[in-house]
């Protein structure tokens, strides 16, 4: 059976979330499989950190080798699958961290698309792959309201997919990572 975990080292153009998802979906289109979990990981073994990506597929592509080549082409580097292949450090780190749930930031995860703007923490855990909602300053009740603003980037920590939230105005919580943080200098630096 071909492994469902794949990983690569995306080039700088493909690192931003939207580009990454578009590239992955393009490569997998018509393959018979989709990426249900897409996580980014940081390889810090070199002086300059590099980003790796790990994918969990919904099944085995009809033509695994062709799909792998297509993915390698859009990512701009070789693609690793669990148990086979060789690839640069970031891909190795991504595969290792994602499979163990040690670290990594999920750009896509099961249940993500169905989350409304505001959701109970308990419902978030029930209806998505997120296993735990953790508050910046303490525990978060299941009844606490999370204002997701349609943007969730849970992280792997200790084998669990965890969403870090913080208090926000109006007695609700919001994800610690937001889609549009303040850009200094027009985001140039």
């Amino acid at each position, binding site marked *: 059976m071909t492994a469902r975990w794949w990983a690569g080292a995306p080039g700088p153009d493909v690192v931003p979330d939207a580009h990454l998802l578009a590239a992955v979906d393009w490569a997998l289109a018509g393959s018979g499989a989709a990426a249900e979990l897409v996580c980014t990981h*940081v390889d*810090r073994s070199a*002086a*300059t*950190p*590099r*980003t790796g990506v790990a994918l969990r597929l919904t099944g085995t592509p009809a033509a695994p080798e062709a799909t792998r080549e297509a993915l390698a082409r859009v990512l701009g580097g070789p693609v690793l699958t669990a148990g086979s292949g060789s690839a640069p450090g970031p891909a190795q780190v991504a595969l290792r961290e994602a499979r163990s749930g040690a670290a990594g930031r999920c750009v896509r995860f099961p249940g993500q698309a169905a989350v409304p703007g505001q959701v109970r923490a308990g419902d978030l855990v029930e209806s998505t792959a997120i296993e735990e909602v953790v508050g*910046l*300053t303490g525990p978060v009740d299941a009844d606490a309201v999370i204002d997701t603003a349609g943007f969730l*980037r849970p992280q792997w920590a200790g084998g669990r997919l965890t969403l*870090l939230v*913080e*208090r*926000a*105005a*109006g007695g609700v919580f*919001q994800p*610690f*990572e*937001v889609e549009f*943080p*303040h*850009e*200094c*200098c*027009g985001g*140039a*630096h």
Partner: protein
Amino acid sequence: MSHEHHGHDHHHGHDQHGHDLVHDGVEGTWADPEADDPLSVSRRAFLASAAVVAGAAAGLGSAVAGVGRGVASASGGGDRTANPWSGRSLFLAGDHHIHTQFSPDAQYEVETQAAQARQFGLDWIVITDHGGTAHQKFSIDQITPKIEESRRRHRDLLIFQGLEWNIPGAEHATVFLPPGRSTVDILRAFEAGYDGGVLADQGKISGATAGDGEPFALEALKYLDNQVRNRRTEIALMFANHPSRQGIDSPHEIRNWRDAAPSVAVGMEGAPGHQAAGIPLTAGGPGRARGYYDRAPGANSFPAYPAESYRTHGGFDWMTATVGGLWDSLLAEGLPWWVTSTSDSHQVFGDTRTPGTQDHATTGSRGTPVDTGAPITSYGDFWPGQYGSTLVASRSRDYVDVMKGLQSGQVVAVHGRLIDGLDLRVRGSRRGDERGATLGGRTWVQRGGDVEVAITVQLAGGPNASGAVPRLAKVDLISGPVTGPAGDRDVFSAPQTTVVETFQVSPRDRRTATFRHTFRNVQQSFYVRLRGSDGNQLDAQGNPLIDVVADADPWQDLWFYANPVFVDVVR
């Protein structure tokens, strides 16, 4: 080892003889006023270092090792005093982080910022537009005459020309010099050679904040240091800005900056600007995070920094606001590193203007701002001095003296006019230096002696810019042992540093509040520092709270942080 003694000697000499001494050790061979090429100067840095080593051996090291290196030693080497207490400090309020129309994301004329600063009572300001290719090429020549014009118009305001440097591999920093014949040339060469944005545009580093820029940051600071050594400028300073905002100023980078040029890289923003950004939407505010501290860790972030480091705490940066945190881990080394408070003023909350229509990338300026006539509530900044200020004890109203005050740590970072001044005296009251030292200084006591800390706070003598008279509620005396150079350059905690006493301000205290604490039978070198609060927002331990995103009224949560005094235990 040797540089510790330079610090002592120099400090001593500095206070008594002014800056003349600075020049003694660097006579001659390599000072070159024409040297604007950073690389050529960088080559000479080798000679400069050689001269320092030779000077130290000959006992001349004191003159060149750097002003402001008020080093407290873990082993208790010296018995000299730095920043001796005088009881007569002239505090000048200022702001070292201000943007104008010459930044791509800001809008005001230099004169607008200068006039506002004056109106809010500031004595000195630094114009710090963002470094970058367009700024280096097009902006500098336009800023200089504007600054000169505002200097003529405001005789009672010192206006420094500076830069908000993109530190290669890290965050931004204020870099500035006193007015002088070579000031603009030095700034221009510095930016061309060492700005992270410029280096990234040139492909010399993989990105402005990428780790491969780190060596350039150290070269840059040495370049500035060399401009002082070769007498092209009397002094040059760097303060790291919004250090925790993105987690990309790692502990080792901060230590490396400090150690590469101890008389230049002297501190960081204890509190970032943008303090109006957290005013809630329901209160007519921008509804963002206080300080615009709303990031999550990224690829270039230092992975060990905790999530809470990315938020402000009572308006202050986590590095400064955490007792036993990063700042204390630096002070525990016995080395100077000072904190400040600034406005980072780009676009002011409630102002009616929008940026001009000029293309910054091709002209270096946004042009003249456009007045819409209607207050804009999405802006998150204050005018210089409207909310935050950096109080500097200065010998006079003079450019170089203000910078020397900053360099020697005679500095208090204040929000919302919580206090008007602070007289801190730390002295070896039994078997020690009886006169003692003040902010940023160092004093000494014999092992087993007593150290007395005497604090006189000048309470707010009038309303702050919100119209209310702020009321100081408490002052924390914080202390920790000096344990020497960090074995791990990435350490960011000092677990032995604690609040040793909290003083409540009595309602009867009108103009001043005085407090005293005595450390008895002192056995180990240590440092003390102070912070104070209006008492509105404290946790159970009396620490500041993490500011809630979009719900942080800055006027209801005021703090001050004072810089430390080191105490050497001798024999």
